[in-house]
């Protein structure tokens, strides 16, 4: 599992690659948390396009980060095309907190407008 970070205006983009399960959840949590602390941006996009596998451990990681983003007055969105991962996101109810987009540009725009 690998996580890369980039900035687009006032938005931090965290791109997750590989497999996100319980084994990698602590790594993902720590890595994203460290980046959030030093980030000057408030909004975050979780780009899950590069994930080949995610189970409900990933939901725990995303919800936990969302709580911290929200505390700092930020908003979050998710990009995901993988049908299985989308189904997990849907049944977990997490999309009520963080809307889902297919493309990065759509998500960046949506966070800017709102």
């Amino acid at each position, binding site marked *: 599992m690998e996580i890369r970070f980039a900035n687009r205006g006032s938005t931090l983009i965290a791109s997750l690659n590989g*497999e996100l*399960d*319980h*084994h990698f*959840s602590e790594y993902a*949590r720590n890595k994203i948390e460290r980046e959030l602390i030093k980030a000057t941006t408030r909004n975050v996009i979780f780009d899950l396009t590069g994930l080949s*596998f995610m*189970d*409900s*451990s990933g*939901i*725990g*990681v995303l*919800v*936990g980060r969302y709580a911290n983003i929200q505390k700092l007055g930020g908003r979050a969105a998710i990009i995901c095309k993988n*049908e*299985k991962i989308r*189904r*997990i996101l849907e*049944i*977990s*109810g997490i999309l009520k907190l963080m809307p889902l987009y297919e493309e990065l540009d759509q998500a960046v725009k949506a966070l800017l407008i709102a």
Partner: protein
Amino acid sequence: MQPINEMKLEFLSKSSNEAFARVVAAAFASQLDPTIEELADIRTAVSEAVTNAIIHGYENKAGIIKMVCRLYERSIEIEITDEGKGIEDIELAMQPLYTSKPDMERSGMGFTVMESFMDKVSVRSKPGEGTTVTLYKTFGDSDKAVTGN
């Protein structure tokens, strides 16, 4: 009903074995020529069950997890067993969003994901003795018939 093939695997309750277990189960299931989608369903459900055994069954302590896979003509049955603490209230544990470990950022969606990705999930557990989760899936079928139950 007799399975046409069967395998048993035992491994330590280490989180690095979550990926190992789901890959093995999917590789064994591939003998029935399932779709890529169906294999992905199996990987996800096995990952959830093994993660539960590690986090909840053994509470991250050392233990042995057993996985038995049985293949029938068009279906698979996967049993995942731990000899850990067991579940006091299975019905409660299977409720969506219920988690006994909210402090660990557990989503409480494990059983819900298993039920969503498989045709049927059954749980046997005794407090102090352990838990067996059995996952059932029929391939290439929309009528959701379950064999070997």
